[in-house]
């Protein structure tokens, strides 16, 4: 697959080159002296862990980020890219992971905006027709008059691409374009991207899915902690060595879990559960699931497939529109979050910074928050700082949270330590069931492994665990059974020992499969 090589011939300037780019943010250097180039018709992938600085680098190229130093060369000429507007004018298109279309406007209106002030500008009145023509030219079928907010995730991705290509794009950057797609949808997109490269467009592709990158890219650059640590051709490297470069050492695959065939009785179960999302749409439909004590039930699905809403409904933060939720046989569907906590339900929310923790409060305060009203932390409504500090110190010690003391704001901690605080808070109560949503998201491999270990320890102690993730390898490693969601519906359930990523991918894309 990676047989074709289109690097620049000697003496000829690359299509675009970033030279010695440095960008610092408060508390972090996102890009530290990074240089990278891209040839005509080349697909150049940038890989690295979360926070390695990939998005910042591509942001610099596309005018979203102003670097502190360094320069950008277009066909050998130094250029200034001061705004996204200017980047668009230079022929730089960018498909971002999030936040790049206006949901209240139609597809056509979004494209009209992107073309504003350029020679290709479309008059607002004849928008739909022109946008439909554009879509046909690039093989991206879309209803130009549909509101972006009403489109499915895959359609939004196509709209993003259309917007990026509409302006005669020469350099197209894509930030994790596969995060929201099923493996099969991604293969379709790969075809489109290859076609673009063949027509001479240079592609910069950010991804952390290494096998996909190896399949598609001509060259691969690896970033780690703001620095570019290697650039290599795809032929010369394999997944294991790429992963080692990303984290700076060889990584062992997570040891397979010791699975036992029979578990205790059912701890957490739902029947015909339906949940509405933020925009009033039905995000989860007719979900029946049950997790036994000591069992780990994985829930697979692409982002936006209803995992978050399911987790929030189970813990009580979102009301169930239909169906029932039972904890050890007791109907908890109408109980509040606090009551469910009291009954032994734990929850590791999808986003630790928006859902897990209150960044402005101290570590101690975050740890005591759900039980602040209880003795010995409060008497007559007045808090007792010593008791709160002691409670915090104990949990910090037990869960090995790396923090000078419990009075620092939790927002100043690293992602891994923040997640430990969330776990410490949930695991400090007696639990019967734990719902974890993306518990290792955005963590480096070591932190992820230690969080996984803590959760699995809990299952050995007889707690029922619902483990939601978008990473199939992770699910295959930790689960007993895996439930697959597609657009909020269960498309099937597999035994984790027999399941494969391919099977799961097909089911995530909507193919039904009856329980094994």
């Amino acid at each position, binding site marked *: 697959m990676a047989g074709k090589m289109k690097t620049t011939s000697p003496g000829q300037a690359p299509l675009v080159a970033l030279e010695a780019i440095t960008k610092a943010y408060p508390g972090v250097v996102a890009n530290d002296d990074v240089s990278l180039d891209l040839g005509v018709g080349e697909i150049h992938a940038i890989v690295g862990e979360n926070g390695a600085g990939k998005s910042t680098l591509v942001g610099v190229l596309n005018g979203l980020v102003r670097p502190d130093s360094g320069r950008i060369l277009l066909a050998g000429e130094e250029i200034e890219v001061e705004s996204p507007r200017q980047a668009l004018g230079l022929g730089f298109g960018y498909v971002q992971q999030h*936040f790049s*279309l206006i949901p209240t406007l139609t597809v056509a209106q979004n494209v009209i905006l992107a073309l504003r002030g350029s020679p290709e*500008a479309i008059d607002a009145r004849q928008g739909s027709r022109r946008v439909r023509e554009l879509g046909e030219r690039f093989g991206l079928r879309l209803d130009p008059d549909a509101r972006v907010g009403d489109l499915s995730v895959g359609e939004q991705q196509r709209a993003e691409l259309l917007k990026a290509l509409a302006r005669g794009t020469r350099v197209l950057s894509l930030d994790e374009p596969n995060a929201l797609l099923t493996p099969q949808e991604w293969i379709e997109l790969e075809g489109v991207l290859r076609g673009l490269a063949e027509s001479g467009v240079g592609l910069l592709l950010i991804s952390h899915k290494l096998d996909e990158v190896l399949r598609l890219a001509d060259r691969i650059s690896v970033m780690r902690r703001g620095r570019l640590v290697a650039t290599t051709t795809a032929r010369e490297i394999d997944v294991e060595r790429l992963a080692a470069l990303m984290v700076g050492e060889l990584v062992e695959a997570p040891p397979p879990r010791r699975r036992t065939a029979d578990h205790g009785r059912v701890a957490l179960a739902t029947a015909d559960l339906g949940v509405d999302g933020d925009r009033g749409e039905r995000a989860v439909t007719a979900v029946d699931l049950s997790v036994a004590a000591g069992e780990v039930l994985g829930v697979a699905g692409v982002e936006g497939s209803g995992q978050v809403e399911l987790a929030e409904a189970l813990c009580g933060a979102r009301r169930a529109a239909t169906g029932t939720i039972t904890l050890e046989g007791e109907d908890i569907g109408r109980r509040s979050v606090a009551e469910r906590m009291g009954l032994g339900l734990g929850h590791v929310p999808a986003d630790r910074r928006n859902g897990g923790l209150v960044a402005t409060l101290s570590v101690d305060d975050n740890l005591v928050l759900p039980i602040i009203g209880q003795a010995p932390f409060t008497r007559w409504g007045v808090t007792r700082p010593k008791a709160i500090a002691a409670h915090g110190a104990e949990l910090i010690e037990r869960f090995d949270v790396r923090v000078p003391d419990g009075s620092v704001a939790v927002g100043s901690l690293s992602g891994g330590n923040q997640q430990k605080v969330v776990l410490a808070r949930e695991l400090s109560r007696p639990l019967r069931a734990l719902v974890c949503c993306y518990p290792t998201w955005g963590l480096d491999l070591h932190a992820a492994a230690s969080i996984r270990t803590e959760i699995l320890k809990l299952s050995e102690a007889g707690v029922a665990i619902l483990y939601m993730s978008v990473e199939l390898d992770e699910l295959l490693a930790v689960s007993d059974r895996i439930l697959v969601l597609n657009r909020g519906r269960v498309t099937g359930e597999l035994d984790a020992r027999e399941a494969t990523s391919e099977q799961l991918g097909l089911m995530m894309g909507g193919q039904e499969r009856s329980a094994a």
Partner: protein
Amino acid sequence: MGSHGFVTLLLVSAVSVGTPLLYTALGELISETTGVINIELEGMMLCGAFFGILGAYWTHGVVGGFVCAALGGALLAALHGVICFVFRANQVVSGVILNIFALGITSFLLSTVLAERVSKSITHLADIKIPLLSSIPAIGPAFFDQDVMVYVALLSVPAIWWLLNRTSLGLAMKAAGERPQAAESLGVDVGRTRWLALLACGCLAGIGGGQLAIAGIGFFTENMTAGIGYIALAAVIFGRWRAFGVLGAVLLFAIADAFQIRAAGLGVHIPYQFLAMLPYLVTLVALAGLLRRSNPPSALAVNYHPND
């Protein structure tokens, strides 16, 4: 006009009460569409009224008065922009403070700069009678026998509707008020769009204040806007962030206000305070979603700073 009936008189009063309100509310509509809220509308109007009178005095003309009124409003808007866009302060706080500032500074200048000139009369704007239309019963005298600033205000409504709904600049404005980050990546210069909208709002609110002072009473008095700016704010909400909706809200509020002036003549005794409460109460009801669902710009009052 002595021979006109109650409805005619009511509408005539309503149009003269409503014109300053309409200018100001349309300005706020433009600004809020891009995500900038101006609690200091009241202050912009006061500045407009003050500088309008001053300008009319300096230039011996009404045109000069309105130019100065617009500049006066824009000056306060610029201050709001510096505080919020450059120094990233909360838009609501800035608005509250600027109202106090505008009230203080216009009163201060009134008693020092304008003091002796208050009584000098300002040339009124002549009414322009539109043939035929002005003789339509009831609405003719109200809408077609007015000064030029009334016509400009009314014509601004379709113009602003066209701007917001039929031009790519309008799309850019909506994008800036809805998802500033996404707008920026679509090539919209959010900062500039918001600055322009804010300054336009300042000009329009200034003209609104100028209309109140120049066309209304012909001089400036301390705190002469007496809350009209807040009613304009309400009109944008009640008008559901649409140009013609704002016109409807302004008409409703203005008729209620005019009714309070005219009702006594009919022998109807509704305490005027209750009619004066109407704009606030109906806006509350509208906000509570008890009428139709209204969708304010998602990023209203949220500052946007690229690059950090």
